C-alpha cells in the first residue's frame, strides 16, 4: 500500500493539488480530498468497459484491431494526404503533448484548435480587445470579500472551487463562511424534504423558491465575505449564495452595461433591465463599490449566450470601471483541467491561443474563419485528428456530419462517440493518472501532474503517439519529395 500525497486532480480548471491517492499493486484503491467527479474518475478509470485498449483501424466499414505501428502509419498517411486537416481537442492532455501537436500541425500544414473554441474562446477574443484585470486564486482566497459567480455553477462544475478559493476557504485576511453556508444548506434541504412530503400528502405541486427580490437583504451591510450568484436559473450554487440575481436568458449584456452606468454614478432611464429592478441593481453596484477586494468569476453561460465576446467585453469593462473606485478582478471559470494550458502552449509556440491555421506555412489566426466548428460547418476540412476530446457528442450536427464523413483519427483513453465514428483509434494513457506532465490552472498557474500507476500495455502517452505520427509524417513527406 502506497499513499501518494499532493496529487493534482485531472478533472476541472480548479486543478486541486491536495489529493491523496492510495495505490496497491498498480491499482488505485482509494482517493481522498476528491470531489464526486474526480472520485468517479480515480476509482473507475481502469474499467475495461470504458477503455480503448487496442489500436483500431476501420476496414470495410468496421473497426478492426491492429498493431500500434500499423495504426500510426495509417494516421500519418491520412494527415499527409489531407489538404486542410484539423487537429482538435487538447484540453484534457498535458502541455508536453500539446507542444508535440503544434509541431505536427506545422509540419502537415493543418489547423490546430483547442476546445476553448466552444467554451472560453470569446473570453480570449475579449481579453485581446479590452485586456484583463485579474489575479491568482491565492490572492482571491486570502483577500476577496465580495465573490460574484456570473453564469457559472461551481457547485456542480467546479465542486471544490468555493471550498479552496472563495466563500468556504479560510484566507489570511478573510474568514471562511463555511459554517454559515452549511447551516443554510441544511435549511434548504429541510425545506425541500418538507415540500416533497407536502407534494405527496396534499397531491399538489410545491411552490417554487423565491428568486431575486427588489432589495438586497440587510445583512449585506456586515463586513463578512459575501457571495452573489447571477444566472438564468436558480442553480445549486445560487441556493448557497447570500443573494441570487435572476437575469432573463440572453440579456446579460444589457445587465452588465446598466451596472457599468450605475458604477459611474449615472442614471438608468428604465425601471428594470433584463428582468432585474434598477433599484436592486443600484444596491448591487453599491455593494460592488463598497467591497475591499471583489472578484467576478464568469462561466460559459456568459461566453456562449447571445452576445458572446461582447458580454465578456462588457464584463471586463465593468471590472475596469470598478477599479476606479475599489479593487476588483475578473476570471474565467475554465472547464477542462488543462484548457488554459492549451491556450498558453499555443500562444507560446505560435503567437495565438487557439484556432491557428498553418496551411500557408506560417501561423494565421481568425476565429470565425479558422476555428474548428466554422471550418467543419462549411465543410472545408478533409481529415481530422482528435486528441482527448469528444466533438461528435458536442459539436453542432452539421459540423459532426462533415467531421465523420472524412478520415477521422482519434487519440483517446476512453471509448466515446468520437472513437466509435473514427477511422483510426489510438489508445492512450490518462494524463494525471498513468502519465505525468504539466497543466495550467484557470488562473494560469502551472502545476505538475503525477504519474500514479503504469498504463496498460499498448497505451502510450499522447505525447509519444504524436511524436511517432510526426516521425512517420516527416518520412512520408521526404519520400514524396514534399518540402
Amino acid at each position: 500500500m502506497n499513499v501518494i500525497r499532493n496529487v493534482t486532480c485531472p478533472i476541472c480548471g480548479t486543478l486541486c493539488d491536495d489529493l491523496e491517492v492510495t495505490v496497491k499493486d498498480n491499482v488505485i484503491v482509494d482517493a481522498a480530498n476528491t470531489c464526486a467527479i474526480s472520485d468517479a474518475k480515480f476509482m473507475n478509470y481502469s474499467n475495461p468497459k470504458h477503455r480503448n485498449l487496442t489500436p483500431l483501424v476501420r476496414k470495410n466499414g468496421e473497426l478492426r484491431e491492429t498493431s500500434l505501428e500499423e495504426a500510426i502509419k495509417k494516421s500519418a498517411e491520412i494527415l499527409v494526404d489531407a489538404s486542410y486537416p484539423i487537429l482538435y481537442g487538447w484540453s484534457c492532455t498535458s502541455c508536453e503533448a500539446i507542444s508535440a501537436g503544434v509541431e505536427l500541425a506545422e509540419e502537415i500544414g493543418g489547423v490546430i484548435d483547442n476546445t476553448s473554441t466552444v467554451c472560453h474562446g470569446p473570453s480570449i477574443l475579449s481579453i485581446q480587445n479590452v485586456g484583463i484585470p485579474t489575479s491568482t486564486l491565492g490572492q482571491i482566497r486570502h483577500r476577496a470579500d465580495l465573490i460574484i459567480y456570473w453564469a457559472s455553477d461551481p457547485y456542480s462544475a467546479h465542486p471544490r472551487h468555493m471550498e479552496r478559493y472563495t466563500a468556504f476557504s479560510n484566507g489570511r485576511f478573510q474568514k471562511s463562511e463555511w459554517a454559515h453556508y452549511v447551516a443554510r444548506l441544511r435549511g434548504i434541504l429541510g425545506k425541500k424534504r418538507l415540500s416533497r412530503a407536502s407534494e405527496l400528502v396534499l397531491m399538489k405541486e410545491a411552490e417554487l423558491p423565491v428568486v431575486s427580490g427588489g432589495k438586497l437583504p440587510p445583512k449585506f451591510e456586515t463586513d463578512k465575505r459575501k457571495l452573489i450568484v447571477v444566472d438564468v436559473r436558480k442553480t445549486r450554487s445560487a441556493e448557497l449564495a447570500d443573494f441570487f440575481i435572476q437575469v432573463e436568458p440572453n440579456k446579460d449584456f444589457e445587465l452588465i452595461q446598466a451596472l457599468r452606468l450605475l458604477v459611474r454614478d449615472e442614471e438608468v432611464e428604465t425601471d428594470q433591465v433584463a428582468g432585474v429592478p434598477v433599484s436592486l441593481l443600484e444596491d448591487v453596484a453599491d455593494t460592488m463599490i463598497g467591497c475591499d477586494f471583489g472578484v467576478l468569476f464568469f462561466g460559459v453561460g456568459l461566453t456562449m449566450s447571445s452576445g458572446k465576446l461582447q458580454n465578456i467585453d462588457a464584463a471586463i469593462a465593468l471590472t475596469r470601471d470598478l477599479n476606479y473606485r475599489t479593487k476588483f478582478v475578473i476570471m474565467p471559470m475554465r472547464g477542462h483541467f488543462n484548457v488554459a494550458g492549451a491556450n498558453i502552449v499555443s500562444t507560446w509556440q505560435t503567437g495565438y491561443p487557439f484556432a491557428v491555421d498553418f496551411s500557408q506555412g506560417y501561423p494565421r489566426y481568425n476565429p470565425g474563419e479558422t476555428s474548428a466548428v466554422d471550418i467543419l460547418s462549411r465543410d472545408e476540412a478533409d481529415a481530422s485528428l482528435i486528441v482527448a476530446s469528444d466533438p461528435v457528442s458536442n459539436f453542432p450536427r452539421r459540423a459532426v456530419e462533415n467531421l465523420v464523413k472524412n478520415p477521422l483519427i482519434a487519440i483517446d483513453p476512453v471509448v466515446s462517440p468520437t472513437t466509435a465514428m473514427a477511422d483510426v483509434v489510438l489508445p492512450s494513457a490518462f494524463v494525471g493518472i498513468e502519465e505525468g506532465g504539466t497543466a495550467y490552472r484557470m488562473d494560469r498557474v502551472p502545476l505538475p501532474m503525477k504519474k500514479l500507476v503504469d498504463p496498460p500495455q499498448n497505451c502510450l502517452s499522447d505525447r509519444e503517439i504524436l511524436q511517432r505520427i510526426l516521425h512517420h509524417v516527416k518520412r512520408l513527406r521526404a519520400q514524396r519529395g514534399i518540402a
Partner: protein
Amino acid sequence: MTLILKLKKKLSAPVSAECISPDTFAGKQESEIAGLTLWEGNRKRQLSEIFEVEGISGSSPSETTIHIKGDLSKTRRIGAGMTEGRIVIQGNGGMHIGEEMKGGTILVEGNAGSWLGSAMKGGVIEVKRNAGDYIGGAHRGSTKGMRGGVIIVHGNAGSEAGSHMRKGLIKIFGDADQFAGIYMKDGTIVVHGNSRGRLGAFMTSGKIVVCGKAESVLPTFSIDKINRKTKIHGDEIAGPFYVFVGDLAEHGNGKLYLSQTENEHLKSVELFL
C-alpha cells in the same frame, strides 16, 4: 479591358485569392496571370489550375475589369488592398472581399461572406444579396475598422456590421443582425430594414439610422429628441426619428436614429423628453 475568370471545379478547401485584384493583373499577359500562385488549403496552386483565364487586362489598374464566374464562397480576400479598377463576382463571394481596399469598385451579384470590406479605406463595394458578419469591421485584435469608402448591401447583413468603424458609409437595405456599429468611432450606418438590437454598443461617436424596427435599445443610450428627418451624405431620409445618444458607459456621443412609426414599443421614452 475585361478579363474573365471561370471557376473550373467545386472548391472544398479555402482558396486564398488575394492575387485576384486589378493592381496585380494590370499590364500582365494572359499567361502571366495564369501563372500567378495562390493557396488551396495547404497546397500551392497556379491560378490556371483553379480558374480558366480569358481576355486581356488593361495597362493600368484603372483600365482593368475582372469578371469572376462561379461559386466563390470558399475563396478569401478577393480584391484585397486594391486601389483602382473593378471586380465583378458573378455568383457568391467568400470572406474578406475588398479587405483593406483603397479605391475602385467591387460588385458581388450573389451573397458575400464575413469581413466584407474590413479595414477598407476607400472605394465602393456593392452586394446584391446578403452579406455575412463584420462588414467594414476590423481585423481580430485591431481597433481600426473601416476608414473610408462605401459598402452597399441590398439584402440582409450579419452581426457587428461596422465594428470599430472610423469613417465612411454602410448602407443595408435589408435587416441587420445585432451589434451593428459596435465600438464605432465615426462614420454612418443606415439600415433600411429591421435591426435585432444592441445597436451602437460601446460607440463613442458616429451615426446609426434604422428605418425599420429596432428590437431593443441598450440601457446605456439616452433619448435626446425627436427629429422629423435626417440627412445621410446629402440624401434626405424622412422620419420621424427618435434620436438616442450614447454609449454613456463609454462617455460616448454617438447618435441612434430609430424610426418613430416602426418602434411603438419605445413610446415610453417620450416621457423623458
